[in-house]
């Protein structure tokens, strides 16, 4: 018996030592996805093996709304999310500090255009938003209190008065093209890729893009952070090394998303973007929080303060408490 052990044990030890590193079990991570172009880093990292290279098995879980992502983070059903709205993150952190920790942020402005006002293609009277003065134009907005606040805030910043110069009604995104095509709405505050589809199909033309940066933050090149990648406090506390490896893979994906046009192929494949606009549709700019400048942090703070004043975020919060640097 002892003789057999003398033979088997060294063999077993040798087998363990000789096993390749890939043979060890990958760390599993659950990532909530809101299917939009801002989820691109997940698909890049998954497609190009960046997660695997860090020995991670990241399961993407599509969730239909941002509140569901927050709920899953709070309950611990997911460890992280590819793209959570920043105002949702601010709101939950006011109520439950530490819930959403942004480790990457998406900037949008006049260069990285994600939101825009569009006017019906046949309308030749409205050439800029200022031309709405005195017209009481029916404007549709992307849905949700956040989008309504941004649309209303922009129009008010330009000096327009609701009820006299415009009326605003939220509409689901799939309704923007038929709503404008049928003439029910003359102007839309819409989001990509719908903005590009409106223009591509000849239904509308862009009046002004990057309006949040210009009119709410006060500079066309300001960084309007409307979404970003988050990790839950539980994930950061219980598996800090896995979180660090995830951030490393994520940083590679962000770089590709920003610099590699081929990454756009994934838009049509996974993110409900029509193939005909996938090559040209504007995208936000991705930043790891470590690359975020103090001026950009100040822009983020201004945006959240604006949302607090507008009643979308419950109370004032220092955005630095939302950011997690890797």
């Amino acid at each position: 018996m002892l003789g057999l052990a003398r033979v088997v044990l060294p063999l077993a030890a040798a087998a363990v030592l000789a096993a390749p590193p890939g043979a060890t079990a990958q760390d599993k991570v659950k990532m909530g996805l809101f299917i939009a172009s801002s989820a691109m880093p997940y698909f890049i990292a998954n497609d190009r093996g960046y997660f695997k290279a860090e020995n991670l098995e990241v399961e993407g879980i599509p969730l239909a709304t941002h509140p569901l992502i927050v709920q899953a983070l709070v309950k611990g059903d997911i460890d992280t999310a590819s793209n959570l709205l920043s105002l949702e993150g601010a709101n939950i952190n006011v109520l439950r500090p530490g819930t959403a920790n942004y480790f990457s942020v998406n900037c949008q402005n006049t260069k990285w255009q994600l939101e825009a006002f569009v006017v019906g293609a046949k309308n030749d009277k409205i050439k800029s938003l200022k031309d709405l003065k005195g017209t009481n134009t029916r404007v549709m907005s992307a849905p949700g209190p956040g989008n309504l606040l941004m649309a209303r805030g922009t129009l008010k910043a330009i000096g327009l008065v609701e009820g006299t110069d415009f009326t605003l009604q939220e509409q689901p995104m799939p309704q923007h093209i038929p709503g404008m095509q049928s003439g029910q709405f003359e102007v839309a505050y819409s989001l990509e890729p719908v903005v590009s589809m409106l223009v591509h199909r000849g239904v509308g033309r862009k009046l002004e893009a990057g309006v949040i940066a210009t009119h709410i933050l006060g500079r066309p090149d300001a960084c309007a952070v409307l979404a970003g990648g988050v990790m839950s406090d539980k994930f950061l506390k219980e598996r800090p090394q896995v979180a660090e490896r995830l951030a490393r893979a994520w940083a590679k994906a962000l770089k590709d998303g920003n610099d590699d046009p081929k990454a756009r192929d994934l838009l049509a494949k996974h993110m409900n973007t029509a193939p005909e606009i996938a090559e040209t549709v504007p995208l936000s700019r991705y930043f790891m929080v470590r690359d975020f400048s103090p001026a950009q942090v100040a822009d983020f703070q201004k945006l959240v303060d604006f949302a607090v004043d507008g009643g979308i975020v419950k109370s004032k919060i220092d955005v630095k408490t939302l950011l997690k640097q890797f």
Partner: protein
Amino acid sequence: MLRAKLGALTPAIGAVGFVVLWWLVYRLGLVDPVLLPSPAESFRAIWDGFAGGALTRDFLITIKRTLAAFAIAVAVAVPLGILLGSSQRVYGSVEFVIDFFRSTPASAMFPLFLVILGVGEGTKIAVAAFGAALLILFNTAYGVMNARKTRQAAARVMGASRARVMVDVTLLESLPQTFIGMRAGISFALVIVIVAEMFIGSTDGLGQRVINAQMIFNMPEMYATIFAAGVLGYGLNLLFIVVERRFIHWGGK
């Protein structure tokens, strides 16, 4: 005497049990309090909402839309159901269409209704009326078809004309089933109106209030609104039971 008094309290047992269970889940911390507020917080939100007028306004708008949808559904479906039910052959020819649309979620028809009617009040009411009408139509037609043959025959033997048999016997015989359809129809109309208010561009109503409260994580207000919607549904159902007992007393006899 005491037994009768206790009997009157029976319907409250379930409601009290539900609130106690909710309170226990909250108290034991089984769900994060950010996601599930205490019953007290939610009831305070209901009180504040009604006292402040905001919840009352949305509540009344949802009632208005539901009643409008229901009225349209009744006006269309009851006569049509009687017409179709009076001839099994005619009903057989449209049965597929009725059952097909009855099996299709009315909320999935939003895009079609939006294309036809555009955005605004009309679509929300029309899509709810459509769903409710199918339920009422189906039940009315079956009520007419399943009217007791012996009573119809007795009326004919006594010399009643075909039209008289239809009005005085068949229609009265079909009313209990029609009312079942109407009761289901009004509940369905309420559900569809609330879903429409949530998802097809509304600036008011209980559905819009639920979705907005959820977006900004105002959970007490969200549950207060859900509770208000539940009370509304229960109230409409109760109203129909009272009307049914009062006016359709021959049902099942």
